[in-house]
């Protein structure tokens, strides 16, 4: 079956804004959970991960939207993946060279951006069907949504885990909840956050 060109007809700013809420990858679409849960032990880690992912997403969307008409349907997934993997390698080498501390904190989860479902998802759903400008806006929007989610989650976990946010003391004399840094804390916090987002969505 031929793939149809389904150009989006939203106003351009909507292309960016929709990623923040209606198509927020974490809270609404529940994609890209692995890095979300793994690296959000602190707000800073969440933010860095978000930035790295947004870089990969935007670069990939750029390339894909340019070459979208050249890629045959059957091998499109493989092509997208290879492009993503390339940019992830770039990001990884960059972090290792310039921010070794962050690179160490994020550990193997930087290379795992390769398999972040929503990056591939955006290519499949959007970049492969839309012109370059729109695709970049879309990527930036979804990326921002991702950064927002990760930073929020990281902040909450850091706050409860140590009484600090971005390393600044927020609640003096806080007795740290070690569990927030552990996997269990990640699951519980995200679970409650998504539930809260559901509740907010419902009252709209």
């Amino acid at each position, binding site marked *: 079956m031929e793939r149809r060109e389904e150009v989006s007809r939203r106003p351009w700013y909507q292309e960016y804004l929709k990623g923040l809420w209606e198509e927020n990858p974490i809270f609404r679409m529940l994609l890209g*959970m*692995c890095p979300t849960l793994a690296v959000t032990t602190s707000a800073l880690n969440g933010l860095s991960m978000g930035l790295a992912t947004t870089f990969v997403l935007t670069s990939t969307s750029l390339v894909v939207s340019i070459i979208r008409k050249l890629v045959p349907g059957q091998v499109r997934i493989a092509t997208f993946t*290879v492009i993503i993997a390339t940019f992830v*390698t770039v990001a990884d080498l960059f972090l290792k060279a310039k921010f070794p501390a962050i690179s160490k904190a994020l550990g193997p989860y930087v290379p795992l951006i390769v*398999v972040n479902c929503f990056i591939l998802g955006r290519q499949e759903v959007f970049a492969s069907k839309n012109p370059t400008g729109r695709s970049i806006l879309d990527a930036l929007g979804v990326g921002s949504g991702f950064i927002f989610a990760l930073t929020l989650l990281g902040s909450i976990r850091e706050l409860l885990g140590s009484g600090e946010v971005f390393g600044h003391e927020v609640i003096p004399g806080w007795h740290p909840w070690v569990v927030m840094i552990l*996997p269990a804390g990640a699951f519980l916090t995200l*679970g409650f956050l998504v539930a809260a987002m559901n509740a907010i969505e419902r009252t709209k």
Partner: protein
Amino acid sequence: MELLLIFVAAVLTNNFVLHYFLGICPFLGVSSRMETAVGMGLAVIFVMTLTATVTWLIYHHILVRFGLPFLEYVTFILVIASLVQIVEMFLRRFSPELYRALGIYLPLITTNCSILGLALFMVLREYDFIEGLVFGIGAGIGFTLVLTIMAGIREELAFADLPRAFRGAPITLITAGILALAFMGFSGLIRV
């Protein structure tokens, strides 16, 4: 003994889902029904074992030999994508039922971080071939174990009067959180 340690660690103490957060997307997606969970679990065990062997061979005999370790991500993802596609075709041919049930999740095994994570961890920890194989099987079994437990729980929860906001992913995440708390009981069982 070393092999047993690797195995137990991969299944229980450092479970891929509950400790490394690998494979959360399919974990959330296919854990709602027991049959699909078991099918997916078996597919993952199979793919993981295969991946462990193939990536080990390629990494050590091609990338390292030619001094190209920086190509590992691209190579690994290529290998995994092809493997999954082969499994998919197999299923489609020999078990259309399972194929239909697993539906969109089969292509998602490609983007299942647990498979790539497995390859990466294997390289990172410098396992030899046999260790890598055991690690792959253990990780697959660990994934399937948690997936099955979760499916059992979720089939039960399907009948529960959950608060509306918690239905679906939130309750699954919270259950996984409690499960992670419970799995902490195994900590120290094997010191990795």
